[in-house]
């Protein structure tokens, strides 16, 4: 028996809901999508049978919410789980970015996570830039005691001297990798906390 057999027993008013639900679930693999539609159909049949005439199809559907919003919960969980399973920093950062607008907590937590990614990316860039632009890249100590790290244009580094030389390459790469690992850990914890 599949989802379509269950749907045959449902009142017509609910079929449009299931159609929109299926459409909303389109990012999911076929088998998973059908499983969710089938479970929703079984749920609606039970809901309508239990309450007799007391519940209209619209009433039973109302409890589930709009089909697109309902589908989005499954899709969001699916994307987060896939990113967590892949462990790829790009996949993890993409999910963090996607969830920023969902709540105040998601915005604050997500921003912190993304700042760590940005620092990690910056460190790695500095490490890779040193052999390409050796004179512009480095840790520059300014005349006033200030310092700047990165790829600095000639006008901004007037009067300052570079102190690390080619030691910058391993140091920046190690720092970048450590920051990236930290950002990955933070994004995992963040995504787990936001999943429903």
């Amino acid at each position: 028996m599949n989802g379509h057999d269950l749907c045959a027993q449902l009142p017509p008013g609910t079929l449009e809901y299931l159609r929109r639900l299926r459409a909303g679930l389109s990012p999911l693999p076929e088998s998973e999508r059908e499983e969710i539609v089938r479970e929703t159909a079984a749920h609606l049949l039970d809901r309508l049978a239990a309450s007799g005439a007391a519940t209209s199809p619209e009433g039973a559907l109302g409890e589930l919410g709009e089909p697109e919003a309902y589908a989005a919960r499954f899709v969001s969980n699916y994307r987060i789980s896939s990113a967590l399973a892949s462990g790829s920093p790009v996949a993890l950062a993409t999910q963090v970015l996607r969830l920023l607008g969902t709540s105040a907590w998601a915005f604050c937590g997500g921003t912190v996570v993304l700042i760590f990614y940005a620092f990690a990316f910056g460190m790695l860039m500095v490490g890779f830039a040193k052999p390409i632009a050796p004179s512009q890249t480095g840790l520059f100590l300014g005349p006033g005691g200030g310092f700047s790290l990165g790829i600095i244009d000639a006008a901004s580094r007037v009067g300052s001297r570079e102190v690390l030389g080619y030691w910058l390459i391993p140091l920046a790469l190690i720092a970048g990798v450590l920051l990236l690992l930290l950002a990955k850990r933070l994004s995992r914890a963040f995504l787990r906390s936001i999943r429903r």
Partner: protein
Amino acid sequence: MEVERWKSQLWKGAAELAILALLERRESYGLQLLEEVRGREGLGLSEGTIYPLLNRLQKEGKVSALWVEDPGASHPRKYYRLTGDGRALLQDMKAEWGAFRRSLTDLIEGDRA
């Protein structure tokens, strides 16, 4: 309104523990779980949230599912049961919950005892 928002945050974390604890007692399908939590004060799991949660727990291997034809039902139902992993998680969560409840109770009642 503020207390409602706080309540829903509080419940988000507790819903998983409630579902696992109910499944420890017996295998159930979604609507059955909903009816059991609805009979209890303050346990605000809704129809729109329980299925995504069950879906996630299944994918994480904490519960397994089986379609069963109940005698007398017109259609099969998706029954969930705890896996070994789910049982282990439930034990850990119960211990954490006990510690959390004791600490918070002591705090808000100001160590009156």
